[in-house]
C-alpha cells in the first residue's frame, strides 16, 4: 500500500508550553499543518471537522484523559481509522503495553527531543505505510 505523505497532525495536551513546542517543532522541521488543543473533550469536537492524518495524544490530562479519548475515537466509525500516537511521560513498559492494547500505533516518551520529534513522527507514519 502506498500511503500519501503526512501532512496534518492534531496534538492534544493540557500543558500549553508543550503544545507550543510541539507545534513549533513539527511546523519548522517538517512543514506539517499542526492543530492543537488542551483536552480530550476538545479533541473529540475538533476531530469532527478537522480529520488530521494523525493524532498525538498526551496520556494524563484532566477530564477525558488520553486513553479515554482514544477509546471514544475507536468507538466512532468516522474517527476510528485515524492513527493515534501517545506522547507521554507515562512510558513504563506496562503503560506502553496498555496504550498499544488500546489501539495506539506508537508511543513517544516524554521528555522528547524537540529537534528530533518531526523525524520520529515521520518514521512512525512511514512504518504505517509499510505495514499496509
Amino acid at each position, binding site marked *: 500500500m502506498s500511503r500519501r505523505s503526512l501532512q496534518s497532525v492534531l496534538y492534544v495536551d*493540557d*500543558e500549553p*508550553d*508543550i503544545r*507550543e*513546542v510541539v507545534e*513549533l*517543532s513539527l511546523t*519548522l*522541521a517538517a512543514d506539517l499543518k499542526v492543530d492543537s488543543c488542551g483536552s480530550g473533550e476538545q479533541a473529540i469536537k475538533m476531530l469532527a471537522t478537522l480529520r488530521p492524518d494523525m493524532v498525538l495524544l498526551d496520556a*494524563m490530562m*484532566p477530564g477525558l484523559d488520553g486513553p479515554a479519548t482514544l477509546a471514544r475515537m475507536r468507538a466512532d466509525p468516522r474517527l476510528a481509522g485515524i492513527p493515534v500516537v501517545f506522547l507521554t*511521560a507515562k512510558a513504563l513498559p506496562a503503560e506502553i503495553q496498555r496504550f498499544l492494547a488500546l489501539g495506539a500505533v506508537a508511543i513517544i516518551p*516524554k*521528555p*522528547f527531543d*524537540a*529537534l528530533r520529534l518531526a523525524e520520529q513522527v515521520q518514521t512512525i507514519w512511514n512504518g504505517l505505510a509499510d505495514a499496509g
Partner: protein
Amino acid sequence: MRDKPPDTAAFHRSAELQHQMEQIGARFLDRVLPDLDAMEELLAELGAGNASAAAALEMVAHRIRGSSAIFGFSMLSEAAGAIEALLASVQLHGDPVVAMPAIAEGMAAVRSAAQALGASHTAR
C-alpha cells in the same frame, strides 16, 4: 572528494527552534511558582480531608516533571517527579494524609529548583 555542503536551511530551522524553546522555557518557569502556590492549597485541602486533592496534586507534579524535562531543567523535573511518584504510591498503597510532610518537603525542593532556574534566567 568534496565534503557534503552543510544543510544551512536545516541549521537555521534548528537554531530558530532552540531560540524559541528558550523563550517558551522561560515562560514555563514563570508559571511554576504559581503552580506551586496552587499545590500548597491542594495540600491544605488534603489535610482538611479532601481525598481527591491527592490526584490533583499528582497531576500538577506530573505536568511540572514532564515539561521541565523537555526544557532541560533536570533538577526541577527530578524534584517534581519525586512528588508524583510519592503521590502515585500512597494513593495505591497508603494514606496520602500520612505522606503530607514528605509531599511538603518535595514541594520545597521543587520551589528551590524553580527559583534557582528563574534567577539564572533573569541574570542572562
